[in-house]
């Protein structure tokens, strides 16, 4: 803490930071990326272990043997479904009642903000059916949920059959201490969302639904099941939920326990978990990257994802039937589920013992929050270094000057009206610095306005666009998105049109300072809640942000300003040393600037900045995702997928409350526009 009181040491440190700025930045960035990739390797990953006492030591014996029953239920369900073309509600009700459940239905309807072309739906209405198995002699204060999302693309008949067979088996047991809700939702996630909102009696997304007739207390845990074949070769587990929320790690441990017990082949992100083999850690990197991408997308990776918002620990089990040799029948899957539910039934408290923030390089390995945070920390350090160097630069620092001016005014005891009206009484300051702050207002406002337009216009203006152009509504939304995005790139020109011609040449640095602080704050906040999103955004946006500086043609006004800055009188004791700082890389770049007059670096920089814009990051993420899934895309396919993803992102925000779209539109895109503005700053 000598730094606070010892000006000499402080100056030394500042000088060090300034002199070594570029190498430090590069080092820090590389360290961040390397740290992230190293997360898949043993010293940073640990074996998972069960923390919850009630689930760890207790033994259960699985007795489920209703494989044939499950298959016949599944056949009947599929037949009825084919016949009616929708969810066979009456049949489900009858069957659930015949296995002894308390059955209720819930109808819901939702008009999407614009037609969903991927799922081919616009006005959605459906019926959820759920049956409650009441725990004997208990007061219905707690419950567990087994949910099967049914949609047009995923009929999930086998899952329904297995669920009904399990319900029949569970009904005959007397050991239940928690009610069990068996839920079949229509229109997969939409139905789940409608049911959850009705269960908690809230309306988050504007869903219209009938109120629920039957409830079963606080839901402790939920499992979503997706099965579409009578036999499976492996079970895939999905944990990533809405906005990157994750369930408690113990729930995953529980699943893994029963995977091992039943000898099932269980996978994570579709990758088999062969940690012991030679390329285990390399596979781990792939799995880790896939998980990071999935988590960053903020889209629920299964119907369980929506439960997490309501503080219900949940995961999705997905039966995969591929070309592997060994196949498991429904009994094996049913036994795993039975075991999980029996152990969840033992829970005395909500799942809270284990980790809520983790990354998974494999099913049996995890990285805790304490170990993965440094990766993002290193990336944010780059911004920190840039901010410190920018704000310490004696020539710029309009902000700190403003602060000093303010301090000075107060020290002199000048009244506010005098301070506002006659700055002449205060020590003479270069005029440029007083205009500095005012010149920031226009770009800030305009970029925020563009962000707001990006957020609001596509959905609001879809009908207008569809009327005037030969496009459908969904296309109109995506095209408006792209148009507003591209229009945002014209910001520098509009800013200059708004600004008076005597814009201060130096205020670009103040603008960059503001943009850096803005970006750093945003990324830090995102990283805390959704590490993957924060990290991926930081990895793409930080280099562009750090390197941005104007490289315009009129880069000559060097020496006068140099002088002007030197002429600044030492305003106070504390700030005096800062003014005496030696010339640094930043201040020396103007002297070199005339050489750059017609340099080609500006298009280069612009290209770099465009490549690191949020949309480009999204596109890159898509290609990376497909490559990791071992289904690489061609450019045209990638572009089509990109457009579809844009529409899905907007839809997910409006239908489920996913935050990625508003975050990008209202937060990161305006911030990126500021950097774009800096790049094209006219001096």
């Amino acid at each position, binding site marked *: 803490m000598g730094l606070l009181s010892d000006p000499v040491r402080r100056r030394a440190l500042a000088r060090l930071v300034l002199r070594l700025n570029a190498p430090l930045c590069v080092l820090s960035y590389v360290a961040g990326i390397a740290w992230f990739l190293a997360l898949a390797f043993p010293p940073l990953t640990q074996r998972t272990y069960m923390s919850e006492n009630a689930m760890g030591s207790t033994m259960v014996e699985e007795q489920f043997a209703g494989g044939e029953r499950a298959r016949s239920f599944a056949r009947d369900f599929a037949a009825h479904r084919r016949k009616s073309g929708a969810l066979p509600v009456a049949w489900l009700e009858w069957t659930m009642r*015949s296995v002894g459940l308390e059955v209720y239905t819930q109808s819901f309807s939702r008009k999407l903000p614009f037609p969903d072309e991927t799922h081919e739906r616009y006005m959605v209405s459906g019926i959820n059916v759920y049956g409650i198995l009441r725990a004997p*002699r208990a007061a219905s204060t707690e419950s567990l949920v087994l949910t099967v999302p049914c949609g047009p693309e995923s009929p999930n008949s086998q899952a329904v059959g297995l669920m009904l067979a399990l319900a029949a088996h569970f009904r*005959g047991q007397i050991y239940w201490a928690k009610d069990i809700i068996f839920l079949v939702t229509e229109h997969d996630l939409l139905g789940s969302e409608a049911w959850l909102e009705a269960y908690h009696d809230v309306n988050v997304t504007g869903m219209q639904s009938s109120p629920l007739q039957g409830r079963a*207390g606080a839901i402790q845990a939920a499992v979503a099941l997706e099965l579409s074949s009578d036999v499976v070769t492996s079970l895939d587990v999905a944990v990533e939920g809405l906005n990157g929320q994750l369930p408690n790690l113990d729930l995953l441990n529980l699943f893994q326990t029963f995977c091992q017990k039943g000898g099932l082949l269980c996978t994570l992100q579709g990758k088999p978990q062969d940690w012991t083999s030679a390329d285990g850690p390399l596979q781990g990197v792939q799995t880790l990257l896939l998980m990071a991408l999935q988590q960053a997308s903020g889209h629920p990776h299964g119907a369980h994802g929506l439960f997490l918002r309501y503080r219900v620990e949940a995961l999705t089990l997905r039966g995969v039937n591929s070309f592997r040799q060994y196949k498991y029948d429904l009994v094996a899957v049913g036994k795993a589920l039975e075991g999980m539910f029996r152990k969840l039934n033992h829970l005395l408290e909500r799942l809270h013992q284990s980790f809520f923030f983790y990354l998974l390089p494999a099913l049996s390995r995890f990285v805790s929050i304490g170990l993965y945070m440094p990766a993002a920390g290193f990336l944010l350090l780059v911004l920190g270094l840039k901010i410190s160097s920018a704000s310490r630069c004696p020539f710029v620092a309009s902000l700190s000057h403003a602060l000093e001016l303010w301090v000075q005014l107060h020290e002199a005891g000048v009244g506010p009206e005098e301070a506002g009206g006659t700055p002449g009484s205060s020590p003479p300051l270069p005029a440029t610095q007083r205009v500095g702050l005012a010149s920031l207002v226009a770009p800030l406002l305009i970029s925020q306005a563009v962000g707001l337009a990006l957020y609001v216009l596509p959905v609001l203006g879809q009908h207008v666009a569809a009327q005037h152009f030969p496009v459908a509504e969904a296309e109109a939304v995506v095209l408006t998105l792209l148009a507003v995005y591209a229009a945002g790139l014209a910001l520098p020109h509009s800013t200059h049109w708004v600004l008076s011609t005597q814009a201060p040449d130096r205020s670009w640095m103040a603008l960059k300072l503001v943009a850096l602080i803005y970006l750093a704050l945003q990324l830090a906040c995102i990283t805390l809640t959704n590490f993957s999103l924060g990290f991926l955004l930081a990895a793409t946006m930080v280099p562009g942000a750090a390197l941005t500086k104007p490289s315009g043609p009129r880069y000559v006004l060097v020496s006068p300003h140099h002088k002007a800055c030197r002429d600044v009188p030492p305003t106070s004791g504390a700030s005096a040393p800062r003014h005496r700082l030696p010339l640094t890389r930043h201040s020396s770049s103007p002297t070199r600037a005339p050489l750059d007059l017609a340099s080609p670096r500006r298009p280069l920089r612009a290209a770099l900045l465009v490549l690191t814009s949020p949309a480009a990051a999204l596109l890159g993420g898509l290609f990376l995702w497909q490559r990791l899934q071992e289904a690489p895309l061609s450019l045209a396919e990638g572009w089509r997928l990109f457009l579809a993803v844009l529409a899905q992102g907007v839809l997910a925000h409006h239908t489920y409350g996913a935050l990625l779209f508003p975050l990008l539109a209202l937060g990161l895109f305006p911030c990126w526009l500021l950097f774009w503005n800096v790049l094209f700053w006219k001096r």
Partner: protein
Amino acid sequence: MAATAPLSLLVLLLLGPGVWGQTEPPRDSLREELVITPLPSGDVAATFQFRTRWDSELQREEGTDHSFLRYAVLPREVVCTENLTPWKKLLPCSSKAGLSVLLKADRLFHTSYHSQAVHIRPVCRDARCASISWELRQTLSVVFDAFVTGQGKQDWSLFRMFSRTLTEPCPLASESRVYVDVTNYSQDNETLEVYPPPLTTYQDVVLGTRKTYAVYDLLDTAVINNSRSLNLQLKWKRPPGNEAPPTPFLYAQRYVSGYGLHNGELSTLLYNTHPYRAFPVLLLDTVPWYLRLYVHTLTITSKGKENKPSYIHYQPAQDRMQPHLLEMLIQLPASSVTKVSIQFERALLKWTEYTPDPNHGFYVSPSVLSALVPSEVAAQPVDWEESPLFNTLFPASDSSSYFVRLYTEPLLVSLPTPDFSMPYNVICLTCTVVAVCYGSFYNLLTRTFQIEEPSKGGLARRLANLIRRARGVPPL
């Protein structure tokens, strides 16, 4: 009572209360009865009642002092075997003879519903109420689940339910009877069959519907003597289909709405399914103090319109002293759902006030609904002393309605809970941060600054000067 036993119940019903008064049973007698009701769902409900009365010297005072009324709930308590054993010890025959032989714990807790009660009250000994008897009434109701215990079959016998049969009445009992609800049986003689066939039947109105009961009097030697034991059997001739059971006129549901750990809403849904009659209900809510109720958010809506309660009594909570008490008289319109909701904020407890399992959540006791529910059956005037005991459990106040008290489900509410595994870490971290910040600021504030001349130089410089002096060159 043994003398009156051969008389059939119908004869007893014909006798007026005056006649009954002369043949008043001796005090400190035991009446025991078991009512078996096959439910429409195929399940079977069994209700035991044991009543003992003894004289006391207590004089009855006029009126009740309401300041001594207390109401307390333990919403978390679950009934188990350790509640049953002391309860059985209160019975005169314990579980050695009479109906109480059937009370085997492993069967009773193999049920889907279990309710056990002890009621004590003073009862007037005569019409002028000059002297008082004490009455101890013990009730036990269980519902046997056709799915779990019957292995899918819905036929029942005493042996299958309790793994016991009845052999003899309790020697101390003045009355010992088994009633079987045969309402369906007597109506169409198609659905249900009872074996052995009953000697007598008894008709009454229970909960607004007319019921017929087959009566088996254990004190009647004919009932038991045939086979040394009485094993009642119920057979469904036509098993009930799996339709939803009929809904009662009044039922309620309670839940917590909202999510997150800051706010929430307690909602109670009151259903009146009567097609044309509205009736008032009295809703009593006690809410623990750590849910801070916002009374201005209390809303009562029926059929989309605001429903103004005709009476509200609210006693606000005092932290750590007493819970909120909210009592309302609400008129429920015919065939409607009334939603009573009130918002609350979850309080942060002191860290020693959390239960050992804070992440389980905290219980909120059930609301209590008291109502006179209209019945469709015009009830006949009932003679209280002659009628079976269950009549007093559901007394009918007038001909058109009956009294019902309903308890909604208790609620489980999570409160913001600190991570209790962390105090040590938190203390260490906090102390470190405080020490570092405070120390450096204290250092800065108390230090005296003075301008120091640039030092003469370090050791190297002095050495150099020494050498220079030796060389005769002016020092640095």
